[in-house]
């Protein structure tokens, strides 16, 4: 088998639903979504207008599911969607949209454009128009368990390192634990401190937790590329492990799309509600804090700001928790002009960071974040998404900016009052 145009169109027909039909019916081409999209604001190119990225999907809807559109197609007044057209739209759908959903927040008629781009990618990938980088990442994720090809041996090495560094026990495949801890490939490779931090925090809180040998990777390339069948397989591994180990809660790591994949898409991909909870690590930290099980001391007394990862704040609803923690830990914490649910994306979400073709564009649109950082004049930025962190560190390097980025969980772990 292989990707074909017909499979793509068939996927369009499958994903088109009442919300999308109402969104397309409502659009009046006011252009406001462009003003909310950093791919337009940073390039000035109208082709990056979010609603325009959906044009083939809109035409497919009109011609398949509306009477007038069907008549127009039958009478030759409207031309059918072609494979060439889908190919042309590939870069718009994959390179210039991070599924950040900022456009969905501003559209005056209420169109959830990110919702539609996510659905459109189902057809784009089925028709073989997903970018090379994402195809590679997805293939690796299915084959090896990680989009970066990280294998369990690597995780084991990091477990040993963390156990040695912090003198903690890191349980693996433990049944009946409170929490199943997951990681993203970035954390395993670049920020293994996350594992140590989570371990120390959960230990201090007296919670039981575990890693799972067959489900350590939280990210889900299937969602980014827009292939629900593959996304289901990936999320199924986590669900299988959580159910086998009978954990109460699965902790999504500091990764935006992982959270969306497990928390919001997971049950829908599996076709059933889960018997366990899914929480982002920030939610867990906040739960522990409220329960008085998170004891902190000292502060990081320098000017810093918080970068909201789109999938965690705007698309995930976790925006108050990091602020509560930062207000406690960082007396000089300052908000960026657009923060919380109206934050600007790092430019690398939604699979864009895995797509080498998009790299120059990703660097261009980082100018927005750059301006936000410069406006505040801070040299430290905290975030809660390893992907944002990698993308921004690369871009900061590119722009020769001397700004450090910290993971919020590590920051919390560094201020644990471990004497108590």
């Amino acid at each position: 088998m292989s990707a074909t145009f017909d499979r793509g169109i068939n996927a369009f027909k499958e994903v088109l639903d009442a919300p999308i039909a109402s969104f397309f019916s409502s659009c009046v081409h006011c252009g406001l979504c462009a003003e909310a999209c950093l791919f337009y604001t940073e390039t000035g190119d109208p082709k990056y207008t979010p609603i325009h990225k959906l044009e083939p999907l809109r035409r497919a809807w009109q011609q398949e599911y509306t009477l007038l559109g069907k008549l127009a197609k039958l009478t030759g007044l409207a031309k059918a969607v072609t494979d060439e057209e889908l190919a042309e739209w590939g870069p718009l759908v994959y390179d210039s949209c991070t599924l950040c959903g900022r456009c969905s927040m501003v559209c005056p008629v209420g169109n959830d454009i990110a919702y539609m781009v996510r659905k459109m990618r189902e057809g784009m990938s089925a028709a073989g128009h997903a970018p090379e980088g994402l195809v590679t990442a997805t293939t690796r994720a299915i084959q090896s368990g990680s989009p970066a090809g990280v294998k369990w041996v690597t995780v084991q090495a990091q477990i040993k390192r963390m156990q040695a560094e912090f003198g903690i026990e890191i349980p693996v495949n433990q049944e009946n634990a409170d929490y199943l801890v997951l990681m993203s490939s970035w954390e395993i490779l670049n920020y293994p401190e996350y594992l140590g931090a989570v371990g120390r925090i959960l230990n201090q809180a007296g919670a039981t937790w575990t890693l799972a040998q067959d489900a350590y990777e939280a990210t889900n390339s299937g969602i980014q590329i827009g292939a629900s069948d593959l996304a289901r397989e990936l999320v199924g591994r986590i669900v299988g492990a959580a159910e086998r180990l009978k954990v109460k809660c699965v902790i999504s790591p500091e990764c935006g799309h992982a959270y969306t994949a497990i928390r919001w898409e997971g049950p829908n991909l599996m076709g059933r509600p889960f018997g366990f909870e899914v929480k982002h690590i920030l939610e867990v930290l906040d739960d522990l804090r409220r329960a008085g099980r998170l004891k902190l001391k000292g502060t990081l007394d320098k000017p810093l700001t918080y970068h909201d990862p789109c999938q965690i704040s705007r698309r995930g609803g976790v925006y108050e928790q990091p602020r509560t923690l930062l207000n406690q830990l960082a007396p000089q914490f300052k908000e960026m002009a657009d923060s919380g649910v109206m934050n600007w994306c790092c430019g690398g979400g939604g699979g864009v960071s895995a797509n080498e073709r998009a790299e120059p564009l990703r660097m261009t649109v980082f100018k927005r974040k750059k301006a936000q950082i410069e406006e505040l004049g801070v040299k430290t930025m905290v975030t809660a998404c390893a992907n944002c962190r990698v993308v921004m560190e690369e871009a900061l390097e590119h722009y020769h900016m001397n700004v450090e980025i910290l993971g919020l969980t590590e920051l919390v772990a560094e201020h644990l009052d471990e004497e108590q």
Partner: protein
Amino acid sequence: MAIDGPTIAEVLRQQGISRRGFLKFCATTASLMALPPSMVPAIAAALQHARRPSVIWLSFQECTGCTESLTRSHSPSIEGLILEQISLDYHHTLQAASGTAAEAAREAAMRENAGKYLLVVDGSIPLGNAGFSTIAGISNLDMLKETAAGAAAVIAVGTCAAYGGIPAAQPNPTGAVPVSAIIKDKPVLNVPGCPPIPVVITGVLAHFLTFGSLPELDALGRPKAFYGESIHDRCYRRPFYDQGKFAETFDDEGARKGWCLFKLGCKGPVTYNACATTKWNQGVSFPIQSGHGCIGCSEPGFWDAGPFYKALSMPIGPAKAAIGAAAVAGLAAGAAVALRNRSAKKSAQAAHQKVTIDDLEKSK
């Protein structure tokens, strides 16, 4: 019948009327013709040369209301004076002669004043069947054509003669048509109204009498001086319309306070006539002043233009029934489209082939 007799000024003078009396006559005539007072010298000059015209009045499918209106015009008066100045040679309601003698009078007037007499018509003309309306065995159509042939001009008095009127209302059983539908080679002046304001009738006659020609007409053949503005524009209740104060019923507070009658169906905004200024019964009042909305009786098609008591902006067709029927059709068509959409989506889902990592690229 003396078309070549003395001028009107001479007649008045012979009657012992002074120049001062003549000027008074001119001033009242100007007012009657709805001309500005500055026109008085021109009227005076014209009347020096104007001669009594011969008038033939034909009544077809009508109710005699127009004649009633004219004769009820407070004679003796300026209208009376005007009528004294014309030679009404044929009017089968008013004339003493009847039968053959009456027709002989008409024929004589036509012969003696060929090309100079004025033809006044009230009532519409049935084209359906000549027998629907005849006078002296002559069909209305034939009599109109015959009499109009030698006329200087034709004045269609009343909405029936001007636009067909009530006889032409749907389904128009007699095939009634207005004068203008038949007479194409003569100037036809319309004085619509059901009935027309009497002074408007005499005003038009006065104009012809004074200047020997017809006044300036609008696109519907009406003299602009009387029909140039809508009732609504000249209505003393207009400020209430602008303020949004309306009578809701004929006996509510608003009605007592004399508020606008728009909501009670007043057709003043689309009716062009002089009622609001000239008024009726010697300038005493007009329908709106008496508390009833204008029914638009001087407009073509007023009889089929919707109920008198429905506001002008209200729908007059079977809108509710149409919406109801359309809703049923919409539900049916919608259900059909919905079924079709659902099955299309279902078959797309059935046609779904599971995507594997080997399906992410097209085969080379």
